[in-house]
C-alpha cells in the first residue's frame, strides 16, 4: 500500500487519522511523544477481535474463549521476541507504562527495600519512573536520590559513579530515551555499573520502543517497561519485562482472578509469573492490538526510520534556531527526534495555541518532568516530536507557524 504522493512520508498513508483538517488547516501531528498514532493494521486487528473473537481468556473451553486465549498468549510471545527476552514468561501485561513501574516499585520494592536503602532516579525521569519510587521509599524507609544531568540532558557520569560508590544503592531508575529532550541514555553502561555494586536497574523504555530496536539481554536490564500507545499500539496496555528469577521472587501486586492457584478464607496461594501479576480480566483487545503494532514495527526497516527521523530532527532543529529568540534545549549527540524549545517572545502555551490554529499539534508544558524543568531552569517548553509518519512538509508548517507566533508576540 504505497502512499499516493511521494512527497509525503512513506509511512504516512498507513495512519488514517493524519488525513484530516483541524481549525481549517491540514493536521500536522507532532505530539507522538505524548501518544503516537496507530497504523490501520492495529485498528483493524482490534476491531476484528471484538467483532469475531471477543471472550474472556484462560477460562473458557469454548471456541471464542480459545481463540482469545491463543491471541493473548501469542501476543506475549510477540512482545518477548520484540524485546529479545529469554522467556515468554518474563513479559507481564499491564495497563500502561506507569502501572508497570508501580508494579515493580510496589512488589519488588516492598520485598527488597529497607530503611536506609537508596533508589537512584535521574533528574530527567518522567514522573512515572520517579513518583512510584517515592511512594515505595515512603513505605519502606528507603531514600530516593537524584542523579544529576548535564545541560544538554546527558547523565553526569562521574556523579553517577560517585553516587553508586557512596550509597547503599538497591535500584537505579532511568529512562532509555527522554520524552522531553530526546536524549538517549547509555542504559547498557548504566546497568553494568549498577550491577557492579549489586544494584538493579529499571529502564523506562516508553520512548525508546517507537524509535529503535530494543534488546533487553544486551542492555542487561532487570526490568524494562513499554507503553502500547506510544509505540503505535492502543491505549490501556503496556508491558513489563522482568528477569524471571526476579519476577519469581516477587510477591503479588494486585489480587483477583487468574493470578491465584487456590483461594480460601484460610489462605490463598498464587500462580507463577507472569500470571501472578495479572489479576482480573486482561485487556485482551489491547494486548492483541499491541502485538499487531510491534509486529508492524518489526516489519519496517528500522535503519530507514532512523535516517528519516534524524533528517527531520537535524533540519527542524536548524530551522528553529534560525528564528530569532528561539532556543532549542538538550542537543546531545545521537538523540531521538524530539525537540524541546523555549522562546524569548512567548510562553510555551501561547506558542502551542498559535501552532494549533495553524493545524500543528505540539505539546507545551512540563511533559511530566518537573525536576528536569527545574534543572533546565525553564517553567515549561514547547515540544515537537517526530515519528516516522512525519515529513518535511510537516516540518515546514511547524517552522512557519513558529515564525508567525513570533510576529504576533513581538
Amino acid at each position, binding site marked *: 500500500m504505497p502512499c499516493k504522493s511521494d512527497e509525503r512520508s512513506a509511512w504516512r498513508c498507513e495512519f488514517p487519522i493524519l488525513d484530516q483538517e483541524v481549525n481549517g488547516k491540514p493536521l500536522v501531528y507532532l505530539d507522538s511523544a505524548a501518544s503516537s498514532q496507530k497504523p490501520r493494521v492495529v485498528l483493524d486487528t482490534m476491531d476484528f477481535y471484538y467483532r469475531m473473537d471477543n471472550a474472556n481468556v484462560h477460562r473458557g473451553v469454548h471456541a471464542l474463549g480459545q481463540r482469545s486465549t491463543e491471541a493473548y498468549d501469542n501476543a506475549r510471545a510477540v512482545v518477548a521476541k520484540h524485546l529479545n527476552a529469554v522467556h515468554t514468561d518474563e513479559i507481564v501485561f499491564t495497563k500502561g507504562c506507569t502501572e508497570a513501574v508501580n508494579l515493580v516499585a510496589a512488589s519488588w520494592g516492598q520485598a527488597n527495600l529497607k530503611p536506609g536503602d537508596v533508589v537512584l532516579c535521574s533528574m530527567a525521569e518522567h514522573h512515572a519512573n520517579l513518583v512510584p519510587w517515592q511512594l515505595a521509599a515512603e513505605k519502606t524507609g528507603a531514600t530516593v536520590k537524584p542523579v544529576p544531568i548535564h545541560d544538554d540532558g546527558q547523565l553526569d557520569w562521574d556523579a553517577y559513579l560517585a553516587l553508586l560508590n557512596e550509597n547503599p544503592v538497591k535500584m537505579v531508575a532511568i529512562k532509555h530515551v527522554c520524552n522531553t529532550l530526546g536524549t538517549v541514555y547509555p542504559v547498557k553502561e548504566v546497568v553494568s555499573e549498577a550491577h557492579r555494586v549489586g544494584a538493579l536497574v529499571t529502564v523506562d523504555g516508553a520512548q525508546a520502543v517507537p524509535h529503535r530496536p530494543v534488546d533487553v539481554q544486551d542492555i542487561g536490564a532487570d526490568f524494562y517497561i513499554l507503553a502500547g500507545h506510544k509505540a503505535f499500539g492502543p491505549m490501556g496496555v503496556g508491558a513489563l519485562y522482568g528477569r524471571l528469577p526476579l519476577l519469581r521472587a516477587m510477591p503479588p501486586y494486585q489480587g483477583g482472578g487468574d493470578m491465584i492457584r487456590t483461594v480460601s478464607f484460610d489462605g490463598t496461594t498464587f500462580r507463577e509469573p507472569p500470571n501472578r501479576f495479572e489479576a482480573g480480566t486482561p485487556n485482551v483487545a489491547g494486548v492483541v492490538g499491541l502485538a499487531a503494532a510491534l509486529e508492524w514495527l518489526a516489519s519496517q526497516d528500522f535503519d530507514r526510520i532512523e535516517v528519516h527521523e534524524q533528517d527531520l530532527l537535524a533540519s527542524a532543529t536548524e530551522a528553529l534556531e534560525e528564528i530569532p529568540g528561539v532556543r532549542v534545549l538538550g542537543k546531545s549527540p545521537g538523540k531521538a527526534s524530539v525537540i524541546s524549545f523555549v522562546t524569548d517572545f512567548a*510562553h510555551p*502555551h*501561547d506558542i502551542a*495555541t498559535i501552532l494549533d*490554529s495553524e493545524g500543528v499539534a505540539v505539546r*507545551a*508544558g512540563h511533559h511530566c518532568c518537573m525536576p528536569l524543568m527545574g534543572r533546565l531552569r525553564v*517553567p515549561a517548553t514547547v515540544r515537537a516530536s517526530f515519528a516516522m509518519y512525519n515529513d518535511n512538509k510537516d516540518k515546514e508548517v511547524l517552522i512557519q507557524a513558529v515564525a508567525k507566533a513570533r510576529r*504576533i508576540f513581538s
Partner: protein
Amino acid sequence: MLEELYRETILDHGRKPRNSGHLEAATHKADGWNPLCGDQIRLFLIVQDDTITDIKFEGCGCAISQASTSLMTETVKGMKVVDALALFEKFHAMVVDGTVDELDGLECLAGVREFPARIKCATLGWHALRSALAGEEAASTE
C-alpha cells in the same frame, strides 16, 4: 479567532502585567494552580472595611493567565469584596458560556471562549482571588 484571543490589550498586559509584585502587609493571600500547564501564581490582597484596598501578584505564566490576572487586579482594586465576587461570576459566565454582560473592560477576554484549552488560563487569577477572599490558601482550576 486567533485575533479575538490575542487582542492588543491582552498582549500588552501579558508583556507588562500591572500590579505585579509582593505585598508584605497582605491580609489575604492564595496560590493559584493550573493543572493543565502547571502555571502557578500567588496573589496578595489587603482588605479593609470589606474593600480591596490593594492587590498584587507574583508568578509567571502564559500571556492569557498573566493578562487576565493583571486585568483582574486593575479592575477589583478599590472594589467591595461582594462586588468583586459578583464580577467573578460574570467573568466566568463570559469565558465559559459566552454570556457577555457589562464587565468593566474585561470583555477583551471574551475570545478565550473559543479556546477551551485556555479557559483555565483565563480564570486562574480569579480562582486565586476567590480562594484568598474565602480564607483558603490555594486554588486550582481542576
